[in-house]
């Protein structure tokens, strides 16, 4: 036996703060989870149809790169375990991959006990997706700059706050919770307060002794700890005005698959803009031989048919710009998705209108949707538009679902490379 006495180090709350030393590692872990989600976004977009889905919908996202691998034994490894007294050969004791057997503490545990999937709501996913994207070439067009955009958002509840934000309902609930808890504690025997519940324990027991049980029953006043305040965060942003014009071809040649691709693309664009820019105006234009301005709902869900005059869509866009968004005041972004199957006679007009659009817009993007193979027998506007020299005009080719995300990123990222 050692001669020196055993040392007891008493609990100090300050130690509890020190024990939050895992904070850095936890943060890094969460970063890795986020990174892993971001890496998988192309797959998720290709696999899941996210259009028009509820923003609270939960999507399962596989996590790669944060699983820890070691050399372990595989399925043909028998194990040993303890039975309940009458184990017989052939008895089924579990399902594969349940983490059966082995007990605790074995390093190199069987696979399957590590999680490698996480649930993410669509909203979080969108947030992660767009984290590092921005509208390119956003200039502050000085003449009409929206000075501030103060958006007060409710965010959670706090124990402290100003009186006007007192949430009475929650406060009352809190009091009831505390009342029930304190009754249960009394029921369990008086000395139980030593075991925990530090905030309520200080001072209250002494007070209770002075009061009769009846009086206590009658009166259970609110306590400082019960008060709950709505918490409000104020986002202040200074932004220039921007308008985004989405132009989609809804002619007969745009079959279901092409429309799906186009809409996925616009959906991303729309989500991106509405998540990141509060005062960006979005205009939807659907065109076949004629163009019309439509609502968001119609844009994403309505089908139409007919021939294609791409110029009609552009003309309509130019008209709207002339009416509402003067280029000297607005940052303008125009995106057009089509299968490129334009009437030949319209091509010169389309080219001219496109040049005009490119001239006044910060960025004008054209996405041509050609599901695999169709590029070889259908005409393409890409050849026509090749003649446009404007540096802020970009084209992409979307052939399959997997292309949506890369081409979307390409659209938004291109100009940053130039800068």
């Amino acid at each position, binding site marked *: *036996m*050692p001669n020196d006495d*055993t*040392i*007891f*180090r008493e*609990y100090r709350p300050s*130690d*509890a703060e020190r*024990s*939050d030393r*895992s904070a*850095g*590692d*936890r*943060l*890094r*872990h969460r970063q*890795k989870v986020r990174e892993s989600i971001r890496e998988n976004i192309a797959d998720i977009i290709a696999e899941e149809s996210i259009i028009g889905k509820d923003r609270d919908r939960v999507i399962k996202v596989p996590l790669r790169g944060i*699983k*820890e*691998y*070691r*050399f*372990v*034994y*595989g*399925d*043909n490894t*028998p*194990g*040993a*375990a*303890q*039975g*309940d*007294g*009458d*184990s017989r*050969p052939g*008895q*089924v*004791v*579990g*399902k*594969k991959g*349940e983490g*059966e*057997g*082995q*007990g605790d*503490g*074995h*390093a*190199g545990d069987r*696979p399957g006990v590590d999680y490698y999937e996480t649930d993410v709501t669509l909203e979080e996913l969108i947030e992660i997706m767009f984290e590092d994207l921005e509208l390119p070439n956003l200039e502050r067009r000085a003449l009409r700059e929206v000075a501030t955009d103060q958006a007060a958002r409710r965010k959670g509840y706090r124990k402290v706050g100003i009186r006007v934000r007192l949430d009475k309902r929650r406060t009352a609930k809190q009091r009831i919770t505390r009342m029930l808890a304190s009754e249960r504690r009394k029921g369990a*025997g008086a*000395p139980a307060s*030593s*075991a925990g519940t530090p905030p309520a324990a200080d001072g209250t027991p002494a007070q209770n002794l002075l009061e009769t049980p009846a009086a206590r029953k009658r009166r259970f006043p609110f306590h400082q700890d019960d008060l709950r305040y709505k918490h409000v965060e104020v986002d202040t942003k200074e932004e220039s005005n921007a308008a985004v014009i989405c132009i989609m071809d809804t002619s007969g040649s745009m079959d279901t698959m092409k429309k799906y691709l186009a809409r996925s693309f616009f959906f991303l664009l729309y989500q991106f803009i509405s998540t990141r820019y509060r005062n960006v105006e979005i205009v939807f234009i659907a065109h076949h031989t004629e163009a019309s301005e439509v609502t968001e709902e119609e844009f994403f869900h309505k089908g139409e048919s007919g021939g294609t005059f791409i110029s009609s869509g552009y003309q309509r866009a130019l008209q709207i710009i002339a009416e509402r968004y003067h280029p000297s005041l607005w940052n303008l972004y125009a995106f057009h998705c089509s299968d490129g199957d334009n009437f030949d006679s319209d091509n010169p007009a389309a080219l001219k209108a496109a040049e005009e659009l490119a001239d006044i817009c910060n960025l004008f993007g054209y996405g041509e949707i050609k599901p695999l193979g169709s590029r070889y027998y259908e005409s393409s506007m890409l050849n026509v538009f090749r003649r446009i020299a404007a540096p802020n005009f970009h084209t992409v080719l979307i052939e399959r679902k997997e292309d949506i995300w890369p081409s979307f990123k390409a659209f938004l990222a291109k100009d940053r490379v130039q800068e």
Partner: protein
Amino acid sequence: MSTSQTTSAAPRVHRYELKDLVEWDKRIRAKVAEFGLDCYPQEFEICDHTGMLGYMAYSGMPSHYPHWSYGKSYEKLKTLYDHGVSGLPYEMVINSNPAIAYLMRDNTLLLQILTIAHVYGHNDFFKNNFTFKSTRAELTVETFKAHALRVRRYVEDPSIGQERVERILDSAHALSWQCRRNLAIKKLSPSEQLDRAVEAAQPRHDPFHKIHARQETAPVDYHKVPLEPDEDLLLFVRDHNPFLADWEKDLLTIVDEEAKYFISMMETKIMNEGWASYWHKRIVESLDLDQSLHLEFIVRHNQVIRPIPGQINPYHLGMKIWEDLYRRHTNPTAEETKRDGPLSKSGNEKIFEAREVERDSSFLRRYLTEELIREMDLFQYETRGEEVVVSKVADIEGWRDVKETLIKAVGTNSIPVLKVEDADFGQNRTLYVKHYHDGRDLQLDYAEKSLSHLQRLWGREVVLESVLDGKRSLLCSNERGFTVRALK
């Protein structure tokens, strides 16, 4: 101390303060000395549940180098705890001198008494078991702290940075258990290995060499690296990859040192927990607790050592064997006397000897008797299709297999044995590693990822010889990816 007035069914809650714990500790230590346990000085730290979670995530170390995997394990523990899936341990002890143990602040007095007694059991085990001889207990805390400092310095070094440190640590962690298992066996240095190889290549002394045909001896290949298959993958890579920077080598050393510290724990899990449980029972029972404390003791003790059907509870298994071993050497049945002969040692002598010289696999092999296996209803299970099925039970034919399977699953036996055979395979600086197959195949997807970690550290192609579904196979990992091909 409170006096018991009534006998109520519900255990009463005893208020206590630190000085009560000190008091009880004195009484427990008197018993510890009386029973002949031999402990390091002991330190207790009282912590709350967040503190305990923190210590658990970092294996109990007061300081530890940062890595995201510890954040991950913290989050996991916390989630399990918050949702009530798993509770927290009553204590954690680390093998150091003085031994450090953490006690949960919110535990009842009885739990603290039980825990303190339990901790002394572990303490004695750490000090005396041969497996821990190679860990320098008086330096444990300082070593881990020095590791933490060094890793932090590399992270903060602008020419290295977090990303690169993490890449090395990720890979090193994947391979860290691929090291020597029995640290009591000395590892030969390369020159000693060479001496041994030369000696083995000498013709054996033969008094009748005149009438015998000449002995054939193979010449020693002096250029072979390694001369003998090497189990320490991380250290081998460190010593034989000339392209590693010093800080990278240092990280590999750190990870290897920590792994070896934990190998000892892993190797004695059942013995150690059984030993501590066995002693906390004997100590607490000798303390003459008043009735309400004693009742709570019975409840808590049974919670700890209860068998868990479908699993192995190391507390239960270990304690059963220790108790049986003690009984057989103090009070053997007539049958046992007939079989084992007269007693050479007393019960106490026997268990103290065993706690010094055994580790889990030898402990089970020697002292887990057929009767115990039957009494505990141990069985062997296998995966068939989608189901886990009992394949052998503790009957006349099956018990040996059950025991064998159990031994294969304890300690480092549950880790595949991999050895470096050749560092210059095909004169190509390809690393040739062999899996010493014992009937259990590798989990292929895990092997693929782990092998790519080895490749990252080695910097060149890495091949692993193994057996998959009865066929000898070669798993190759190089910059083009991962392939498996059958060997003849």
